[in-house]
C-alpha cells in the first residue's frame, strides 16, 4: 500500500512538464513517451488505492492530507472514492493514448516541443480536479486547465485558432468565476473548505443563501458541461482543436463539469435543501435543461455536415443525458448511471475524435458530403470509428448503450414516484432515436458509400494500436461495466 500515491501522481505529472519538453527537444516522440509512461505509472499508483476504497471501515475512501494554507483552512487534501477513481482512471487511459497518438498526428507540425509540456500541465489539472477534496484546491486545478488548453487550441488549432481559444477561455472562465463565488460563500458560511466538513456543516443550516450558492455552483459547472444555452463555446473549441485536444476536451473536460455538479452542487450543497421545495424545483429545472440540451444537440447534429461539429453537438446532447440523470439525484441507480455514462462517453468520444482526426487529416476535409467510403481504404480505423459512432448511437454491445439503459431505468424509477419526470423521460427516448440517426448518418456517409478517389491509407501502426486499444476498451465497458459500477456503487452521498 502506497501512502502517498495520489501526491505522487500529481508530482509525476508536474515533473513531466519540464522533462517532456527536454525529451521532445532531444528526440521527436520522446516527450510523448514520457507522458505515456507517467500516465501508465499513474494508473498503477491509482490502482493501489483500490483496497482502501473497498474498505468500508474508512468510509470507502482513500485520503491524503498535506500542509498548504492553514490560515483559510486550505489543506492540500487528496482523496479517491469509487467515482473519483473511475473517472481518473479513464482520464489516465485517455491521456496515455492521446499522447502516443500525438506522435504521428503532430509529426508535420513545427515547433511541437512545448506541446507535451502543455499536455502534461493539462493532465495535472484534470486529475487534480477529480482527486481533491479541498474546494480551494479544486478551484486551483479548475482554473489550471484553462491555460494549457488556451495555448494548445491557439497554437495547433485550425481556423481562427486564437480567436476560438479566446472565446473558450473567456466563457469558461466566466463560469469559473461563479464557482469561485460559490466557494467563497461556502467558506464565509461554514468556515471550512473541506468538502466533507462543509457538507456536514451545511446540512445543519438549511436556510439563508444556500439556494443561491447552489445556483452559482451549478451554473458555473454547467458552462463547462456546455448545457444549452451555455454551450456556445463548445462547437468551435471542439472543431478547431487538434484531434488529440478534442479527444481530451470531449472525453475528460466536459466530464469535469459533470463531476463538479455531482460532487459539489449535488453532493455538498444540495443535501441541505433536499427536504425543501426549492431543492425539488432545482432538480426539476436541471432535468428540463438536460432534456433541452439532449434534444437540441442531437437535432443540430442530425443536420450538421462538418464531422467535428457533429461530434461537438453530439457531446452537447450526451451531456444533456448526463444533466438529466444528475437531476434524478439522490436515486442511487441514477448516480451510478451518470458516472458510468461519463466514463463510457469519455472513452467513446475520445475514440471518435481520434479516428475522425486521422480520417480528416488524410482526407483534408471535414465535410461529410465530400467524405465517402473511408472504411474501404482504411478498414481498421473505419471499423473503430464505426464502433465509436454506434456507441454514441446507443447500440449494444458498445459502451454508451449500457449507461443510457441505466439512465432510463433510473428515470422510470424516479418517474413512478415523481410524475414530473415522465414527459422528460419520453423526450429523452426521442433524443435517443435522434442520436442513432446522426451516428448512422456518419457511418453511412463517411465510412460506407463509394470509396473516395483520394488514396487514403493507414500506415502508422501507432495510430492503429491506439485506436484499436480504445475500441477494445469501449467494447469491454459495454459488456462488463461491473468493473467500475461496483466501485461507483460504494460511494455514499450524505442525503
Amino acid at each position, binding site marked *: 500500500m502506497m501512502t502517498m500515491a495520489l501526491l505522487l501522481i500529481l508530482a509525476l505529472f508536474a515533473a513531466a512538464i519540464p522533462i517532456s519538453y527536454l525529451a521532445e527537444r532531444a528526440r521527436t516522440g520522446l516527450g510523448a513517451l514520457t507522458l505515456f509512461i507517467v500516465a501508465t505509472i499513474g494508473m498503477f499508483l491509482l490502482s493501489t488505492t483500490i483496497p482502501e476504497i473497498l474498505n468500508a471501515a474508512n468510509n470507502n475512501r482513500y485520503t491524503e492530507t498535506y500542509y498548504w494554507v492553514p490560515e483559510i483552512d486550505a489543506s492540500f487534501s487528496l482523496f479517491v472514492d469509487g467515482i473519483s477513481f473511475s473517472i481518473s482512471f479513464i482520464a489516465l487511459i485517455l491521456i496515455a493514448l492521446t499522447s502516443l497518438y500525438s506522435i504521428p498526428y503532430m509529426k508535420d507540425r513545427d515547433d511541437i516541443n512545448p506541446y507535451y509540456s502543455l499536455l502534461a500541465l493539462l493532465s495535472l489539472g484534470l486529475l487534480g480536479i477529480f482527486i481533491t477534496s479541498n474546494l480551494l484546491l479544486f478551484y486551483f486545478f479548475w482554473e489550471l486547465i484553462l491555460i494549457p488548453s488556451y495555448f494548445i487550441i491557439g497554437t495547433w488549432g485550425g481556423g481562427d485558432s486564437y480567436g476560438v481559444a479566446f472565446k473558450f477561455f473567456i466563457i469558461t472562465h466566466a463560469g469559473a468565476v461563479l464557482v469561485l463565488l460559490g466557494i467563497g460563500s461556502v467558506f464565509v458560511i461554514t468556515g471550512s473548505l473541506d468538502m466533507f466538513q462543509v457538507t456536514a456543516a451545511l446540512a445543519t443550516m438549511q436556510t439563508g443563501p444556500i439556494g443561491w450558492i447552489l445556483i452559482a455552483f451549478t451554473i458555473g459547472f454547467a458552462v463547462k458541461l456546455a448545457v444549452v*444555452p451555455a454551450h456556445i463555446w463548445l462547437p468551435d473549441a471542439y472543431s478547431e482543436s487538434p484531434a488529440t485536444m478534442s479527444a481530451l476536451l470531449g472525453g475528460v473536460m466536459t466530464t469535469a463539469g459533470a463531476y463538479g455538479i455531482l460532487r459539489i452542487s449535488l453532493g455538498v450543497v444540495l443535501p441541505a435543501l433536499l427536504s425543501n421545495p426549492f431543492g425539488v424545483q432545482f432538480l426539476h429545472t436541471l432535468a428540463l435543461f438536460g432534456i433541452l440540451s439532449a434534444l437540441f444537440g442531437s437535432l443540430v447534429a442530425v443536420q450538421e455536415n462538418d464531422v467535428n461539429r457533429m461530434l461537438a453537438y453530439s457531446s452537447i446532447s450526451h451531456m444533456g443525458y448526463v444533466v438529466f440523470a444528475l437531476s434524478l439525484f439522490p436515486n442511487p441507480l441514477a448516480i451510478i448511471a451518470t458516472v458510468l455514462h461519463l466514463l463510457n462517453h469519455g472513452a467513446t468520444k475520445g475514440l471518435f475524435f481520434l479516428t475522425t482526426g486521422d480520417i480528416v487529416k488524410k482526407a483534408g476535409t471535414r465535410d461529410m458530403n465530400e467524405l465517402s467510403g473511408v472504411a474501404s481504404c482504411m478498414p481498421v480505423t473505419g471499423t473503430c470509428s464505426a464502433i465509436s459512432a454506434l456507441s454514441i448511437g446507443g447500440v*449494444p454491445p458498445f459502451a454508451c448503450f449500457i449507461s443510457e439503459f441505466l439512465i432510463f431505468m433510473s428515470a*422510470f424509477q424516479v418517474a413512478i414516484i415523481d410524475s414530473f419526470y415522465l414527459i422528460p423521460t419520453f423526450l429523452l427516448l426521442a433524443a435517443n432515436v435522434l442520436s442513432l440517426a446522426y451516428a448512422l448518418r456518419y457511418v453511412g456517409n463517411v465510412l*460506407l458509400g463509394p470509396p473516395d478517389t483520394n488514396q487514403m491509407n493507414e500506415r502508422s501502426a501507432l495510430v492503429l494500436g491506439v485506436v484499436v486499444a480504445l475500441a477494445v476498451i469501449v467494447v469491454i465497458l459495454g459488456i462488463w461495466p461491473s468493473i467500475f*459500477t461496483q466501485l461507483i456503487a460504494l460511494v455514499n452521498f450524505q442525503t
Partner: protein
Amino acid sequence: MLPLAPWLVWIIPLASSLLIPVMNRISDKARDYFAVVSIFVTFLFAASIIPDVYFGPAVGTDLTAPWLPIIGVTAGIVVDPLSILFANLISFLGLIIIVYSLGYMKDEEGLSRYYFFLTFFLGSMIGLVMSDNFLQMFIFWEMVGLCSSALVSFWSKRVEVVRAGTKVFLMTRIGDVSFLAAIAVLYANLGSFSFSYTMAHIGDLPLSTITTVAFLILGGALVKSAQFPLHTWLYTAMEAPTSVSALLHGATMVKAGVYLLARVFILFGPLIPLIPMWLESIAWIGALTAFIGATLAFGTPDIKGVPAYSTVSQIGFMMAAFGTASSSAALGWFAGLFHLMSHAFFQSLGFLAIGAIIHMLGTRDMRKMGGIRKLMPVTFALCIVVLFARTGVPPFASFFSKGLIVKSLLITGDLLQLIIVYGAIALTFAYTLRFTILTFLRGQSDYVKNANLHEAPKIMLIACIILAILCTVWGFVANLFASFMHVGQVVQFSEIFSIPTVIFVFVLFLGGFPVYLYYYKMDGIESTFKTKFILPLSTVAGNGFYIDKFYDRFVGGGVAKISRGVRTAEYSFFERIPTYVSHGANRFTSRVHSGFDIAISKILYFTRDRWLSKDDRSPHDVDGSLPSYLVVFLVGVLILVVMILMTIWV
C-alpha cells in the same frame, strides 16, 4: 444435452464471428468453411437440447452467471420449448443459408464482413431467444437490429443501399425505444429484469401498469415484426443480398417480434385476458396486416417484393392467431408458432429460389421477365413448391397451420376477422400465382432472351431442396411438434377431408382464377379494362399505397424541418451570443466614455459661457478633443493649487 449447450449455442457463433477476420487472413476457403462449421456445431448443440425439452418438463430451467450485480442482473439462459424451438430454427436455417451463400456470394468483395455479420447475427438472435432476463434480451434485440442493418447495406458502395440499411435500423429503433420503455416501467415497479421473477410477481402490480407494459411491448414487437402500419422498412431491406433477406425473414429479425409476444404470453400468464383491448388489438392488427400485406404483395412489380410483403402478411396471420389466445396453452398460441415454422421454411425457400434469377438477370422487375421455366427447370419446380406451401394447399405444412389459425378464430368468434383472414388466404394464392406466371410462364421476354440464364450452382440448389422437402413434410409432424411444445392440441389428419377444407379450396379458387385469367389468358392483350381500371390501381399498390412516401415526407420531413429550424437558431442566435455580448460591451464602454466626455465638455462650455462675452465665443465643439485638453489643463491647475496650499500649511 451436450454439456453447457444452452450457453454454447449462442456463444459459439458470437465467438467464431470474431475469428472470421482472422480466418480471412489464412484464405478465403478457410473463412467460408470456418463459418459453415461453426454454425453446424451450433446447430448440433441446439439440436442436442431437443430431447431434454421433449421429455422434460414444460417449465423453463435457469442457469445463471453473475454479470451486473448493481441492478441485480445475472446473465442467464432459459431452456423451455419456446426458446429451444427458436434456437433450433435459427441455427438450422442459418446453416442452410450459409451453405447457400457459399455459392451465391462466391465472387463478392468484402466477404469477411459478410460472414462476420452473418454469424454474429445468428449468435445474437439465438442469444435473444435464450435470454432469461429483459436486459440481456434487449441487448441482443438491439444487436439483431445492428446486424440486419449492416447486412442490408452489405453492398455498401451503393448509396441507396447504405441509405436502406440506415432506414431499417432507424425505423426499427422506434419500436426498440417502446420496448425499452416497457422494460423500464417493469423494472421500476418490480425491481428485477428476470423472467422468472416477473412471472412470479407480475400479478402484484396494478392492472394499469400491466396494461402500459403490455402495450409498450406490443409496440416493440409490431415494429420488429413489420406489422401495419410500420411495415415499410421490411421492403426497404430488400436491398440486401437475397441470402440475407431469406435469413431476415425466415428466422431472425422479424421473428424476434413474434418471439417476444409468444414470450409475453408465458410471462404474463393468467393476466393476459385481463388486459383491456390487448388481445383484440393484436388480432385486429394481425388480420388487417395479413390482408394489406397480401394486397401489397399482389401489387408489387418487384420479384423480391412478393416474398417481402408476403412475410408481412404471413406474420399478420401469426399475430391474428396470437390475438385469439388467452394463454400460452391456448390453440391460438400454438397455431401462431406452428405457422411461424412453416412460414420459416417456405419463405426462406421463396427467397433462395429466386436468388439466382436476380443474380443472373440483374433486375428485380417481374414485368421484364417471363418464360424462365425452360431455362431453369429445377428453380421452377422449387417455386411451384413455394406456391403450394405458401398458399397452404393440402398436405403442405401451412395448410395445417392456417387451418389451426382459422379454427382458433372460429373459437373466439369474430366473424369479420375471419372474413378478412380468408380474404388474405385467397390473395396469398393470387399473388404467388401471379408471381409464378409472370416470371416462369408466359412467353420468354426479350430481356430474358438476351440474358445468359442457366440453372443455379449445385450447392445452392441442394440448400433449396432441403427446404422444399421440409415444406412438404412439416405438416405431418404437427403432433410431434405439439407435444414438443407441451401443448395438448392435436391435428387430426382426417380433417383434410372436411368442410373447412372445401371452403379453403374454394377460397383459393376465388383468389387464383381471376389471376389465371388476367395474367395468363389475357397476357399481351390490350383492353380498356386494363388501362382504365387495373393500371392506376396497380400503380397505387405497386408504390405500397404510398405509406412509405408519406413517412418520408411527413415524419422524416417533419423531423428534418425541426432540426433545420433548431440548427438555424443555433447559427443565427446562439453562435452569435458572444458577438452580441462583446459588441454590447464595446458599445457600453464607449457610451460611458463619450458620455463622460460630453458631460465634462458641457460643464466647461457652461463655465466658459459665464466668463466670456458673446462675441468671443467659438461654436460649441462636443467631439471631446477640446474638453480633453481643458481637463488636462484643469487637472494641472488643480495639482498646482494643491501644492501651493500644502506649502502654505506646512
